[in-house]
């Protein structure tokens, strides 16, 4: 076979492997029970070589698993060396430090055999509805309070499900049938991936995938290093302050680009919190690496080689490298700010590529009614977001998360399964940071209960004290704000609170930062924003120095005068 034909064949096998992991992920999403799995595709799936290097990964919704699951397989192999694995085995864990950062994510790894020898591993992760303990509340003082901890162990032993483990799981979680269903789905989806791999090996008469895997990794590394070589070399630092739980948190990063790749060091970052907003290193690596890849090589696939070009270090037991047994359930609180933190370093290195800061962590709404008498009560989480940062040459996306890829839950669906009434859900005017390119708008939601009962409100919001910053002269986005419709009491951004009967909670979500000076924004673009109600006439005058006449038409002369006056 000539080199050229071998080259074509490699490519076909590569795309077939990507399709195999895609099928693996899709079957997991469709069978999944938790809202984040089905609405956001909060799963991941991949194929690995014998040494635990990830060769291909499915493109799924949330970046938090990207690097974390990739590295988890090595931990499985440390515990169970590949040649001790048997055909028909599958292994499981939810170790936050060895898998994907909190107990609610279950990961399963399955070896694939050819002629009696393990030739590859399929791994997958999904977010289950519940894992016991204090549930999604970050109030536990350590990981023991956050639910059942499953160390790396067999879930399937030569074709037999581990009934002992399933029994323990069932006894520890509030929704045993759903969690067990998710475990079966994890095992089944790896089998689908494995069956596809066997077909590929049949068709191309392969005994193993070592050679193919190595070529994929070599090519990927070469392309990633070429992309990194286009960056200037040096070290750049950034600092970001966020609200925190009991005290403000400082995140520090130093990004170094050199011939080895991109290195990020988080020295100076605040120590761990008493609450479950701490982030294990694996999850920090996932989001920090995601930020770099978005800027440097967004179209390259995620695999061991492309991710291996990005390394991350952080001080022991800082909030971005929390040690066992810190509580970590809400690790996304920190993780989702890391791309913006890294962007602040790259802004100094490269021109016109780096977006302004976004809302960051999601503004999910957790509301419940306590059970009383016959009424079972409810507890519901819906996914929503403030605005994203403006981009060089583009306005920011309104009411859209970054870096998460999560989707919202329709209002009609939320109201159909609870007694909640969402009276309003609309863009928040003037909340996008002013700039040559405007930050994305936040949104306002007003929520009450149509049953005569108070609501319990579980708040863990960020960007209430510290707004998303603009870049290159762009203004910050609006801060988030929480209040009661009656105005009768103050609402805090963190902690469990009560919304009185017949009252409403008003949730105003932050806007994204602006990019470039607002005075350089095309007055026509400002006029369009005013026409559409994204910006008020007053906002246009104050922030953009753009004036309108009494009939609401753009007044060019007055605008020129305002702008000249500065």
């Amino acid at each position, binding site marked *: 076979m*000539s080199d050229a*034909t071998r*080259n*074509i064949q490699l*490519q*076909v096998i*590569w*795309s*077939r492997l990507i*399709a195999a992991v895609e*099928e693996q992920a*899709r079957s997991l*999403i*469709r*069978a*999944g*029970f938790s*809202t984040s799995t*089905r*609405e956001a595709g909060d799963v991941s799936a991949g194929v690995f070589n014998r040494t635990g290097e990830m060769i291909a990964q499915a493109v799924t*919704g949330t*970046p938090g698993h990207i690097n974390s699951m990739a590295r988890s397989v090595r931990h499985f192999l440390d515990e169970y060396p590949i040649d001790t694995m048997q055909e028909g085995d599958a292994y499981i864990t939810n170790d936050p430090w060895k898998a994907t950062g909190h107990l609610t994510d279950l990961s399963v790894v399955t070896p694939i055999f050819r002629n009696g020898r393990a030739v590859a591993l399929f791994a997958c992760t999904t977010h289950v509805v519940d894992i016991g303990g204090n549930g999604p509340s970050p109030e536990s003082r350590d990981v023991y309070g956050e639910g059942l901890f499953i160390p790396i162990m067999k879930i399937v032993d030569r074709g037999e499900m581990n009934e002992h483990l399933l029994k323990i799981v069932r006894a520890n979680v509030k929704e045993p*049938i*759903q969690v*067990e269903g998710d475990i079966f789905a994890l095992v*089944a989806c790896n089998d689908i991936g494995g069956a*596809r791999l066997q077909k590929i090996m049949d068709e191309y008469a392969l005994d193993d995938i070592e050679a193919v895997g190595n070529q994929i990794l070599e*090519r990927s590394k070469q392309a990633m290093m*070429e992309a990194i070589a286009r960056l200037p070399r040096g070290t750049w630092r950034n600092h970001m302050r966020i609200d925190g739980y009991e005290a403000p948190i400082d995140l520090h990063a130093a990004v170094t680009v050199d011939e080895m790749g991109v290195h990020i060091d988080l020295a100076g970052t605040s120590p761990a919190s008493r609450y479950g907003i701490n982030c294990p290193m694996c999850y920090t690596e996932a989001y920090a690496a995601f930020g770099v890849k*978005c800027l440097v090589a*967004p179209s*390259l696939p995620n695999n061991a080689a492309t991710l291996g070009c990005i390394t991350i270090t952080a001080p022991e037991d800082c909030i971005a490298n929390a040690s066992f047994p810190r509580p970590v359930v809400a690790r996304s609180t920190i993780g989702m700010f890391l791309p913006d933190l890294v962007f602040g370093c790259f802004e100094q290195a490269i021109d016109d590529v780096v977006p302004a800061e976004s809302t960051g962590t999601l503004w999910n709404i957790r509301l419940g009614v306590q059970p009383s008498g016959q009424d079972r009560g409810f507890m519901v989480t819906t996914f*929503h*977001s403030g605005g994203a940062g403006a*981009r060089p*040459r*583009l306005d920011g996306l*309104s*009411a*859209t*998360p970054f870096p998460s890829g*999560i*989707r*919202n839950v*329709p*209002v*009609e*669906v939320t*109201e*159909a399964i609870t007694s909640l*009434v969402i*009276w*309003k*859900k609309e*863009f928040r005017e003037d909340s996008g940071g002013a700039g040559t390119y405007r930050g994305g708008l936040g*949104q306002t939601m*007003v929520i009450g209960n*149509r049953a005569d009962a108070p609501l319990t409100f579980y708040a863990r919001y960020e960007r209430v004290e510290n707004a998303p910053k603009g870049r290159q002269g762009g203004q910050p986005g609006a801060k988030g704000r929480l209040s009661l419709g009656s105005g009768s009491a103050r609402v805090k951004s963190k902690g469990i609170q009560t919304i009185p009967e017949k009252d409403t909670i008003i949730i105003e979500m932050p806007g994204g930062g602006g990019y470039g000076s607002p005075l350089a924004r095309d007055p026509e673009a400002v006029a369009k924003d005013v026409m*559409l*109600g994204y910006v008020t006439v007053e906002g246009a005058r104050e922030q953009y120095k753009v004036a309108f006449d009494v009939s609401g038409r753009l007044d060019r002369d007055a605008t020129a005068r305002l702008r000249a006056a500065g």
Partner: protein
Amino acid sequence: MTDSRQARLAVDIGGTFTDIVLEIAPGQHVSGKYLTTHAAPERAVLEGTRDLLARSGVSPADIRLVVHGTTLATNALIERKGARTALLTTAGFRDSLEMAYEHRFEVSDLYMVRPEPLVPRNLRLEVDERLAADGSVLRHLDEESVRALVPVLERETVESVAVCLLHSYANGEHETRVGAILRDALPGLNVTLSHEICPEIREFERGSTVCANAYVQPIMESYLRRLDVGLKDAGIDAQVMLMMSSGGLTSLEIACAQPIKLVESGPAGGAVLAADIARKLDLPEALAFDMGGTTAKLVLIDGGMPHQSRSLEVARAYRFLRGSGMPLRVPVIDLVEIGAGGGSIGAVDALGRVQVGPESAGSEPGPACYGRGGTKPTVTDADLVMGKIDPETFAGGMISLDIGASCAALQCHIGASAQMDARTSAIAIVEVVDENMANAARVHATDNGAELEGRTMIAFGGAAPMHAARIAQKLGIDTVIVPRGAGVGSAHGFLLAPVSYEAVRTRLISLSAFDVELARSVLGEMRKEAESFVRLGVTTAAALEERISVYMRYRGQGHEVQVYLAADVLDRDPETRIRELFEMEYRRHFGRIIPKMEIECLTWTLTLAAPTPEAAAADSATASPAPAPRRTQTLVDLASMQDNPANIYHRTDLGCGASVAGPAIIAEAETNTMVPVGFTACTDTYGNLILKTGKAAA
């Protein structure tokens, strides 16, 4: 009174060509391809019809039925050429159309842009009212708040209005009243109510559907009325029926009111044709494969019925990515669409991999070999260089192909950066595009709990017969059928479609506390609605075929599985029987069921269809000898990547029963069928070309 006239006319308006088939008598056709006249699409229809009537000697008065499908509604949505539309919503919810799913469909792209909503924010107006999820009234409709909008609509010269109030799928009274007030105040205004077009839960999808309908309605209605008048003026006094995306037909009146149901009617026609072949040839499981100039489409066909769905996405603006278009919830044939066609362009990416599409050279400038200024290598260029096209008969000899231009384009854009010659570059493009289509088929099958191995592929559209056999090899498929008239397959399908209507309702009913009376009343209401629509379209009192399905899930899941129910399911022990059907379907999709978990019925559909038109009689089967090849040319075998001499035949040379062995090319005006090494091809009594591997023939 039955109509004794024989002739039927099928018209499929596509972006480039208007395909017309005139059926003179069962099994006897003339057909033609005419350039679409975008300014007034009826012109090409009327001129083409006149041409076919002249060619066949049929009198206009002999045409009994005109069946029409068109991409005009889709194009209006893609090109944003619809009416100036306003949206009336519940106060507090005017932004849900623009917020969409609040997500980024491409997670890694920092510069992702979401498509603009069809209705800008200043035309999204609020009405004071509020329903609860069960349809009860939380705030009564303030009629003054509706009347107050009338001057706004006038001032803004709004041509069409969509009304989408929260929870209207559970109670349509407020929407109905809003519609009445608007029609009263502004008699000429087009109004679409969301609970009439799409009575389903999920405010963004329902809002998107109702806005799309309002947006295309004025232009579609005006076009359809002009066509109707034009046909009458041409002496064609026929019933005019429209092809819907569901694969069924509807009347002109319903099409004028609900034109959004026509969006994917062309591909639906192809699926109907494929399903008809599957039924005639008694194929339990088939895969329809349609490949044209810019996209390819795949449909699973089980038991002679194409898979159905209730949602599709049109106008995907970003590399055909899911989420980058406009969701519509209407009854559709469940087709997966891939940005891969004859005009798709090949390039080398940063990893040194050859990538194909979704960028397309379209028909202008077209592939490099057309010599119309195209310089980038397309799939058609690669097919030509590999020897899959007979240049002498291509496009009926209308276009002379420049193979040198293809080689130069391949060498310059692929070969130079990937260190390959033009021939190898061509192989790379074809292998990659075939693999992309095979992968899309695999993922689609997984999504539907279906297997592909052992299915029969039915291939049509200009590019499909050149790629079908190789994709079949990749999917473990042993038989490929290329129907007669494969180039105008959709229009042929129109003549095989039944008049039908699908009614839909969202009613959450838990299986453990199954409310038979509620289910019965919902189905009764839907049956009444469906019947009233179908009867408008059928001339006879023939019994209608009824199909009931319900979308079900385990409580807590977000995806539903469609379960078909027998007509008498509610009569005895419905709970047990529905559970069994659900569990069977769930097991097929996911391999196992979840015992003891609560099961919910969410969305109900009821379809009534008139009997399918009788099948055309087959020609008599007389085995004819294998013809002599016209000539030979070199063809690359993709499985081995070796060059082989391939015989070239004209499709008309192959009499019924004649069989030829690969490697061979079977040429016709609209396409070429590639028969690779290991396949034989023969013609059956219906005129289908049937390719089989040695395995299937044995």
